[in-house]
């Protein structure tokens, strides 16, 4: 509808454009694992670097100029602001273009998007973080958030499984947690050909034998490939977890991140708006959830 008295000052595209990427610089590229690098970014505009705030579990839309835009979880914790850490796996076109960039190169960032973990609800409870493979990327934000606000949470348990020791993301950092007493950090690998691995060997669900979990006082955050969901979810249900205390982080194709482009729609939810964190109860009610 055209407003007769409208003057030409209305420029929603120029200000408040939700699709506008803000330029950020790569300050560090850490080659954690083959094809899984950790990129540390800082907004070029200082005020953005200072003011950017996110919730654990949220994601950004990352633009690799000339190649495209993609959703990437924020792996750093809001408790450690000023920079963003992104753990990106090289799978295709845009991620490959990202991997060709070097420190000081420029990227576009917009966000944060998605619901993130319901922190207010979780606080005061136990947390169980269970991840397989790349699933550690979104959980790491939650992990450090909880560790940095240790007094706000009861018991913290981390279960993380990778194929081999060299495939484990954030390995050094996580190994340093194993000896800490304020967290039960359980790391496992499917196989250890080198024989140098000092932690668990075996499938992820086996770690439950080493953890003390009170299903009625705990929120479980699960993330990983479909097999991880399959086995962990069953285990949690068997333990008697309420369905709405199991939190899953879902991946869908996304082009906008803000509930317009339609790609991430699951049944009647947009992964980018109502997700990517869904409870198990949501999941069984949504077709095609996993």
């Amino acid at each position, binding site marked *: 509808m055209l407003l007769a008295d409208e003057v030409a000052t209305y420029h929603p595209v120029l200000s408040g454009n939700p699709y506008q990427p803000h330029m950020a610089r790569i300050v560090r590229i850490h080659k954690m694992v083959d094809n899984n690098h950790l990129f540390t970014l800082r907004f070029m505009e200082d005020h953005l670097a200072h003011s950017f705030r996110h919730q654990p579990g949220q994601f950004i839309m990352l633009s690799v100029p000339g190649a495209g835009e993609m959703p990437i979880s924020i792996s750093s914790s809001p408790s450690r602001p000023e920079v963003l850490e992104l753990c990106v796996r090289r799978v295709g076109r845009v991620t490959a273009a990202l991997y060709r960039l070097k420190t000081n190169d420029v990227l576009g960032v917009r966000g944060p998007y998605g619901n993130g973990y319901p922190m207010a609800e979780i606080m005061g409870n136990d947390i169980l973080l269970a991840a397989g493979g790349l699933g550690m990327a979104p959980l790491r934000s939650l992990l450090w958030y909880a560790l940095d606000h240790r007094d706000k949470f009861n018991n913290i348990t981390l279960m993380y499984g990778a194929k081999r020791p060299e495939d484990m993301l954030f390995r050094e950092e996580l190994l340093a947690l194993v000896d800490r007493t304020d967290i039960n950090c359980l790391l496992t690998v499917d196989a250890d050909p080198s024989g140098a691995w000092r932690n668990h060997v075996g499938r992820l669900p086996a770690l439950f034998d080493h953890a003390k979990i009170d299903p009625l006082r705990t929120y479980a955050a699960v993330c990983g490939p479909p097999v991880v969901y399959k086995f962990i979810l069953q285990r949690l249900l068997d333990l008697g977890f309420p369905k709405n205390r199991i939190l899953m982080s879902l991946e*869908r*194709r996304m082009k906008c991140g803000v509930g317009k482009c339609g790609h991430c729609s699951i049944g009647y939810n947009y992964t980018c708006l109502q997700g990517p964190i869904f409870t198990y109860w949501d999941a069984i009610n949504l077709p095609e959830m996993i």
Partner: protein
Amino acid sequence: MKILKLPKEKLDLFASVVQQFGELHAPVEQDGRYVFKRLTRWSDARLEYDRTILPPKKYFLPPKETLFRYRPGEGFVPHTDGLDQRIILFGVHACDVYAINILDRVFAGKYQDPYFQARRKNIAIIGIDCTPDKQCFCRSMRADFVDHGFDLFFYDTGNYYQALVGTALGDDMVLATGNLFEPVDAADIEAYKQRSIDKRRAFQLDVEIRDLPEIFEMEYQSEMWEELGARCLSCGSCSMVCPTCYCYDVNDDVELGSRAGKRTRSWDSCLFASHALVGSGENFRGTREARIKFRFYHKQRGFVAEYGRPSCVGCGRCTSACPVHIDVVEVIDRLRRVQDVASR
């Protein structure tokens, strides 16, 4: 709401006056079908058209548009060309106005789509009454009347158009014509009511949408989806012509020899195999069956949960565009096990 009437023979005059408010676009004939197009002559307008090939959606969300230009050193600069162009869409049917109202809600919310919103502000809509044909079921979808979303809406009451004034701009248009419009009297109101009854009687299609979401849930495993999946060509026609399909794709086009270029978005469809494919290689709707089911599910069930009503407005476009005759009304009837109108 202000209600006036315009003698039919004055419509030409009215059209020539409203041109000062923007570029006039209306349905024109194209090989036996109709398309919204810029008018070069008022006499080209075909206000008694059935439906246009593409809905007015194309004005608000073009098939392909540039969102940003990218230059190293400058970053992403929003592309604003054409957003402030003033257009008057003359002769939009109620269902199409309804559909734009639906798009309004999708493109509003916490993250307003500024491109859509800018165009929505700058494009005026003059709606027009229509007579349902054998593919229309807008009445069933509750989209046969609209109470907002237009600047003016004309109902055909015989010798007059009864005009609903929807916005200040609509009112300005009326005022700009001097005294072309007249007040309505009791007889006009009676004429309108008669027209309303006639229109209702003209519908040849009828589907029941109450409890449809529930039935969709119950029939999620119906064998019908498999059969439709085997038939669907994934040609995307239904999504393109749908006035409420808004899925889009975003791509970066680079210039030769640099990383500079533009970010564009273009219409997409949930019927395409790539629509729900993700980085891990998982495709959440890998089969054609899953995709065609999703299209119906999202429109008739998912959208209800999100926005309180189905996104389908019953314009009949997808049914006539589908090369393999996948027909919404038939799909709903089959889900409800309705054989014919009498058994409803």
